């Protein structure tokens, strides 16, 4: 009988009875004190075994937590690598934002220094100033290098450094508004801000088919290189512009070309060009050409 109870109680405590069987067992439990006594004991046994299971599991967990200690994970802002990466990103961002300004400064500095490394840089020499008054040619200049340096110094005095020209769309005429001359206009804005590299990039986009814009673009590229002090690069562009007979700014291109020749030690070419400009009273730079020839005379 007791063994029967034992099996029944086990099935009840382990939840293995069907609902109807369970209900019948609970009824019997109320009626039969012997069953109730046995049930109470077995229930205690189960509770005791539960405690044993928990004790065992606790001991295991303690052992595992000692064998596999948790490493304290620092908050993200304690990680040096994260901080370093963030700092680097910020620096890169700052550099990226400051780059155009630095580019401008570099262009200005290059324009200042490349033309003449030996002499003191002079950014604003007025064209109206009489260069002859400020130039002191050394009578003892004997060597070729010394002479070349003096010629370049003279050329630099005649070189303008600021970029301002009339609004080109007015000069070109409104009929070309729809053409790619917008690139020239944008480039002029960049050049006036001394962003020569950007200006040159824009100007190089003008296709050859846009003839008037193209010549003007070539001239402006030459002018940009000229202002940057890159006379050799400037020369070919300025030659293209000055060879176009009906180009509206041909005289200016010729003058700049002459300065380029002088600055790159091509004296005979410069002289030929200046001599062709000086007697022509209709030339926009004939006065400057005459004056420059006078200044150069002692050195030739």
């Amino acid at each position, binding site marked *: 009988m007791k063994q029967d109870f034992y099996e029944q109680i086990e099935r009840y405590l382990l939840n293995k009875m069907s609902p109807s069987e369970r209900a019948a067992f609970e009824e019997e439990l109320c009626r039969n004190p012997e069953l109730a006594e046995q049930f109470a004991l077995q229930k205690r*046994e189960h509770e005791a075994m539960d405690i*044993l299971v928990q004790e065992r599991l606790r001991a295991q967990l303690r052992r595992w937590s000692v064998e596999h200690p948790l490493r304290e994970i620092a908050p993200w802002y304690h990680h040096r690598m994260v901080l370093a990466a963030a700092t680097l990103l910020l620096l890169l961002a700052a550099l990226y934002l400051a780059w155009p300004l630095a580019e401008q400064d570099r262009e200005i500095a290059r324009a200042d220094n490349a033309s003449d490394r030996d002499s003191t840089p002079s950014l604003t020499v007025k064209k109206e100033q009489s260069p002859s008054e400020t130039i002191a040619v050394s009578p003892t200049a004997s060597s070729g290098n010394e002479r070349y340096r003096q010629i370049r110094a003279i050329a630099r005095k005649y070189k303008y450094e600021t970029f301002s020209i009339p609004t080109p769309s007015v000069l070109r005429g409104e009929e070309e508004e729809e053409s790619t001359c917008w690139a020239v206009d944008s480039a002029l804005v960049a050049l006036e801000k001394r962003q020569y590299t950007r200006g040159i990039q824009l100007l190089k986009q003008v296709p050859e088919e846009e003839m008037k814009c193209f010549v003007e673009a070539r001239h402006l590229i030459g002018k940009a290189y000229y202002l940057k002090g890159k006379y050799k690069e400037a020369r070919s562009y300025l030659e293209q512009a000055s060879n176009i007979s009906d180009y509206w700014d041909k005289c200016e291109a010729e003058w700049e070309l002459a300065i380029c020749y002088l600055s790159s030690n091509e004296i005979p070419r410069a002289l030929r060009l200046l001599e062709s400009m000086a007697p022509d009273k209709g030339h926009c730079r004939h006065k400057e050409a005459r004056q420059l020839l006078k200044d150069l005379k002692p050195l030739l």
Partner: protein
Amino acid sequence: MGREAILHYLFVNSGWRMAAVRLIRSLGGSPQDAEDAVQEAFVVFDHHIRCDQYKQIGGLKSYFLGICRGRWYSNRRKVRRLVFSDNPTSHQPLPGDDPEDRLLESERRERFRAVLHQLDPRCRELLSLIRVNYSMKEIAQAFNLGNENNARQRVFQCRQRLAKLLKQNPFLNEDLP
């Protein structure tokens, strides 16, 4: 063995422990508080799964983290009770959180443990395995008992010893809360 391997995986490799520690740290617990609460929560979690209390609503991990949160609040209440305060509202017990009940439960469990320690360690181990549904074959292997019949006999002896101990300690016949 299967159960132990699963528990080991859940505790050591699953990342649950770390997630639970982070949770308790975020609730203001110290690292030691967190580790204690997580271990307690594992015990409760194991009990719930074995007793079919997990209703499969939500993920198992969420269920476990819920238990952790509960254990943490429960532990914190225990600690708070020891803090003396002039504020009378702090002495109001929460519903179902009568300090007297808790004390009695704690004392009863301690008595149970003391009685159970009178059993030999092999019996304790064997009974705990039986309770987590190890088969006689598995018990025979774990205890080098040869075959299932030997295991069954050994289990019977241990249960008899346990029953005898419980009969000798009638104060344990009160219901555990």
